[in-house]
């Protein structure tokens, strides 16, 4: 496999330029900007920890935004993991039509954050939308899904849950790789299906659970399209997720310095959670070799 060195480095030039110019440099610039006040017109002026101090002492919207972001992540990430693992488990069985169901479940995922999907969600959960019509059939009072601050965040969280398909496909691939012999051994030991799932299946696929968990967290903390397009952050900032606050600070009110500081807070939150999950993984992730 040893070849002349220069050729390899030549192949890596695009990636290297990308990492330096579009990742490392912006990363450092945003760190520096977070200590400035910058409105795009005047040049940035250094204000020390001013942005960070303001955030934690004199910005009620920041607090609301942080709370909404945590709630959104804590609702959607476990919801998607549980639903996708459950459906993948049901699918992981020798029955006809597995591929058909897998494809059907995957369709919402390919539509992702499309604006059309946001329009659909807005209509489904409108006060006179079909979700409330269905509830009406069961004599349940209409729920003001997107209008009530207590339900709006959950409603846009449901959109994320609707798109569990890509996580499910990853789980299904992992489930199909679990050696059959292990189930046979478990059956001889008299373990039932549920016991088999928790004692055989789950331990083996924990590395994939870790992968889906981390990717889910990183994405959930950065959700933008759903709150921006469906609820406009409202009502009463109940869906005003951090990424939306960052966007509006930067591109609506042109507080580039403050927005950079907000993005650094979000970055640190995401890093802390990711590290916590990785740290905890040695207690629950099972590596077969």
């Amino acid at each position, binding site marked *: *496999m040893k*070849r002349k*060195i220069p*050729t*390899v480095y030549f*192949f*890596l030039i*695009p*990636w290297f330029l*990308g*990492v330096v110019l*579009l990742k490392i*440099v*912006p*990363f450092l*610039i*945003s760190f520096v900007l977070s200590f400035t006040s910058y409105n795009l017109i005047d040049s940035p002026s250094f204000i020390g920890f001013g942005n960070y101090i303001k955030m934690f002492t004199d910005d009620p919207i920041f607090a609301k935004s942080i709370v909404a972001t945590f709630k959104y992540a804590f609702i959607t990430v476990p919801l998607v993991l549980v639903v996708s693992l459950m*459906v993948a488990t*049901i699918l992981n069985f020798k029955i006809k*039509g597995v591929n058909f169901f*897998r*494809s059907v479940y*995957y*369709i*919402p995922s*390919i*539509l*992702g*954050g*499309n*604006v*059309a999907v946001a329009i*659909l969600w*807005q*209509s*489904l959960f409108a006060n*006179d939308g*079909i979700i409330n*019509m269905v509830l009406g059939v069961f004599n349940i009072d209409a729920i003001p899904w997107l209008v009530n601050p207590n339900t709006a965040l959950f409603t846009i969280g449901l959109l994320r849950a*609707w798109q569990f398909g890509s996580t499910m496909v*990853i*789980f299904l*691939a*992992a489930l199909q790789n679990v050696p059959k012999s292990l189930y046979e051994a478990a059956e001889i030991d008299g373990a039932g299906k549920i016991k088999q799932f928790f004692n055989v299946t789950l331990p083996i696929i924990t590395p994939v659970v870790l*992968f*889906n968990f981390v990717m889910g967290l*990183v994405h959930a903390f*950065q959700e*933008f*399209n759903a709150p921006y397009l469906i609820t406009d952050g409202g009502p009463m900032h109940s869906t005003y997720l951090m*990424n939306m606050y960052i*966007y509006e600070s*930067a*591109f609506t009110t042109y507080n*580039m310095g403050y927005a*950079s500081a907000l*993005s650094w807070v*979000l*970055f640190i939150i*995401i890093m802390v959670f990711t590290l916590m999950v990785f740290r905890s993984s040695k207690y629950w992730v099972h590596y077969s070799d």
Partner: protein
Amino acid sequence: MSNKLNKILRYVILSVVGFVLIYPLLWLFFATFKENNEIFTTLSLWPEGGFDLSGYKEAWQTSTGRNFGFYFVNTLQILIPKVILTVISSVLTAYAVVRFEFKGKSIIFATIIATLLLPEVVLRIPTYLIWSKLGMLDTYVPLIAPSALAIDSFFIFMLIQFFRTLPTELDEAAKLDGCNPLQTLIYIFVPILKPAIISVALFTFMWGMNDFQGPLIYISSTDKYTLSLLLRLSQDADSVVNYGKVFAMSIMALLPSILIFFFTQRYFIEGIAATGGKE
């Protein structure tokens, strides 16, 4: 007997879940043919007044003076170069990282994984300022150019997983036949990894179709709007008065993705499945 019951139970659960997932899309589709006042008054999918196509007509005309096709072409002007550049740069990077031994390899691999998890949100403002300084605002360059620099670590990671599965004999045999590394890539690996490469292309395309924040930040003149921005415009302007039009436009915007998915689904499924696997 219990096995049969088990099977039936699985089918029932799978069908119910499938129905719940797809019903909203079916509802949206049939609502495009309904009269405005019918959309929010009945649960039935079938339009009572027959299939009214005026929603599609209005959606195609849009309200900007340009038709829907114009914005579709705009979107393709971004997506086609983006797909090609993403494929080339990601394949080159994954190939180099997996098939060669060289100094700094482990650092590069670690950097790829780190950037996979690096939140894009922390880079957005400086990236905008850089493009602004280069005079590239309100052009497609900020939406296309990063793809040439293998900016999406997810695809590199996905291709790495596929490159890893291939035996080293391939490289050795190619070398004996006198192939240089680039020839080895083009004549040996690209044909073998065609499904994975198609996956990367399809994902880039779909995600590009769905991208809203990118165009929102960089594109300001209506003539350069993508489908996402056109839909947003229509959502703001028409969704109180003219649902038929907004829904028809939504279906028209989703249809390319859904059709492509139907004809190429195995590439999506295999591609996404590979990222979670350990091998």
